[in-house]
């Protein structure tokens, strides 16, 4: 059972002066899965990543990566993980090939020996191999960073907010790459503030203000959602929210892009009642439909 776990986190706490960044975090991440840590900015995602990648020490609790303790066996961990921080952290004044060579060499290997691991991603940037990293576009930089994190065939790959600030198409492409990396047997621990990426992970944990508020497969988390959910569309979203919020039985009402999600108890007000309330307030032409909850709805309920 123990061998199946790639990462084990038990009761990790971390504070910076008066701010409690992480409070009693416990997680199990299995070998060969994509595990997503999902939460807004400032939830403590990066703090947990820094502890697991041995960059900082936890105040309490302990954690293991591949059975190695993050405090006492940090050297063993560093040999077997790949880490891609949220910001681009490669040498801007070295070329693409030089960066890759550099990271291969410091891990005691060569690009040629592990070419298969990175081939699919590297082939997309190989034509720029002599270009300096600072002259690459954002998407190219990200691919290079991923190559550098993978070039030594790590067992576990840590990706801290890899898709923040990346356009929708590149994000999709990136997740496709992750699926391929996973298929080659690498465990991936990824953090993201985008709830819609949760569905692409095998299992996820929701983190909010330094605490894990829920965990499981995305389907499990969604199935645990107890309330009925309506999606309301209309022209004046601000007024719609103001009208719906005071209604008896409306638990939560939050805007979701061009619509708003209204959560009510299973025996709460139904669609016709909500629509009538909107009509009474002079908001015509609105539509109210029952909808399936997503991860974001779960997050809003729990946070």
């Amino acid at each position, binding site marked *: 059972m123990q061998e199946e776990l790639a990462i084990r986190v038990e009761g990790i706490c971390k504070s910076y002066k008066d701010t409690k960044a992480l409070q009693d975090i416990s997680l199990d991440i299995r070998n060969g899965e994509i595990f997503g840590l999902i939460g807004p900015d400032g939830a403590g995602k990066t703090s947990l990543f820094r502890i697991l*990648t*041995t*960059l900082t020490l936890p105040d309490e609790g302990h954690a293991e990566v591949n059975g190695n303790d993050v405090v006492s066996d940090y*050297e063993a961990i*560093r*040999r077997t*993980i790949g*880490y891609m*921080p949220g*910001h*681009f*952290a*490669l*040498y*801007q*004044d*070295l070329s693409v090939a*030089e960066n890759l*060579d*550099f*990271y291969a*060499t*410091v*891990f*005691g*290997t060569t690009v040629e020996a592990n070419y298969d691991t990175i081939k699919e991603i590297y082939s997309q940037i190989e034509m720029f191999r002599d270009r300096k990293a600072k002259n690459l576009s954002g998407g190219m930089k990200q691919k290079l960073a991923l190559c*550098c994190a993978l070039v030594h065939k790590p067992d576990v790959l840590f990706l801290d907010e890899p898709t923040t600030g990346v356009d929708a198409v590149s994000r999709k492409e990136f997740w496709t790459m992750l699926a391929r990396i996973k298929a080659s047997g690498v465990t991936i621990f990824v953090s993201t503030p985008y709830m819609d990426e949760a569905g692409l992970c095998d299992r996820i944990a929701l983190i909010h203000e330094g605490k894990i508020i829920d965990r499981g497969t995305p389907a499990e988390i969604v199935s645990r959602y107890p309330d009925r959910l309506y999606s309301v569309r209309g022209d004046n979203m601000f007024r719609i929210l103001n009208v719906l919020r005071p209604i008896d039985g409306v638990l939560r009402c939050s805007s979701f892009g061009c619509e708003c999600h209204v959560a009510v108890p299973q025996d709460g007000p139904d669609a016709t009642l909500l629509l009538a309330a909107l009509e009474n307030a002079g908001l015509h032409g609105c539509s109210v439909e029952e909808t399936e909850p997503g991860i974001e709805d779960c997050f809003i309920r729990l946070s």
Partner: protein
Amino acid sequence: MGQYKKIQDKTLTAMWKYLLKKEFRQFLRDPGMPRMVMMFPFLIILVFPYAANMEVRNIKLAMVDNDRSDQSSLLMEKCASSGYFEVKSVSASPEEAQRMMDDGRIDAILTIDTGFGKYLEGSGPMQDAMPVGIKVNTVNGTRGNIGSQYLNACISGFVMSEKGMDSAPSSQVEIRESYLYNQFMDYKLFMIPALIVIAITMMCGFLPALNIVSEKEKGTIEQINVTPVSKTAFIVCKMVPYIAVAYFMVFSCLLLAKIVFGYGCAGSIFSIIIFTFAHILVMSSFGLLVSNYSENAQQAMFIIWFFSMVFMLMSGIFTPIESMPEWARAITYANPLTYYADAMRGICLKGSTLADTWFDLVCLLGIGGLTTTWAVLSYHKTN
């Protein structure tokens, strides 16, 4: 097992090699750095010695002659021909001379009052005050001070020679000065070793510190920290290019001084190598210390700027330590530049050997040991 160890050693060497390669590459790829390094020796030898010259010459002098006697014009002639003064105005009125000084056009006024000629001719003893006045502009203290000394020397020399004819020759004492180690009091010869000291200090203390802090700023140091590269390997490889450059500067400066001015180094090159190494140790650990305590390049720059002022001004490079007050002298004893500059001057000018300069070396290594320990301890704490 042995096989495995061999493979591990091999990858370790490869790692060190590549780290070094990376540092050199980045250094050479920097748009300004290599050019600066090439420029520095030329500046040190060909430009700075002239600029950092503290000999005072060309003191602008106005002379007011109220006496208008033969003696007064002789005195003026003597002052004008001494070589220290640039006579701006002669026999102007006292008011006009004062105005010129207020405007900053002259540094000193020599006023010869009526009765100067009589005073010299008078057979009586020189009990009355001599009717000669000196006014000196001390906005620039050194210049004023030295200017008045020169003027005094000129006047008393003149008076001596005029009066001395009559007075008893037995009272005359001739003082002959001879300058040891720097026979012609050539300021350049004295400043070049000190300027090399400053260059090494900048090269090995400050540049690596800024380099490390900028890796911190860009986040690349984190990426290195999750690799098996040890901190020692990282820091040592970072230092190597700067050490190489430091030695390049020392030797190119010495070579240039030899070619351009014909100055040879009186001491052995070996002791220069030893002292330079000790100083590199001190300065690089100091730089590492600064980088440990600063989050960004701006902070590091400021700390460095602060210390470089203290290091340079309180080291005896520009002003003699002996003329500093007691408390300031105490600071110079904690300053590594004091010892390195003292040793470098000793070696270059006097040909001091390691046996003569062992005290400097011990102090330098002592300070180095202290800063290195502190730097290593704080490095582990912050990371």
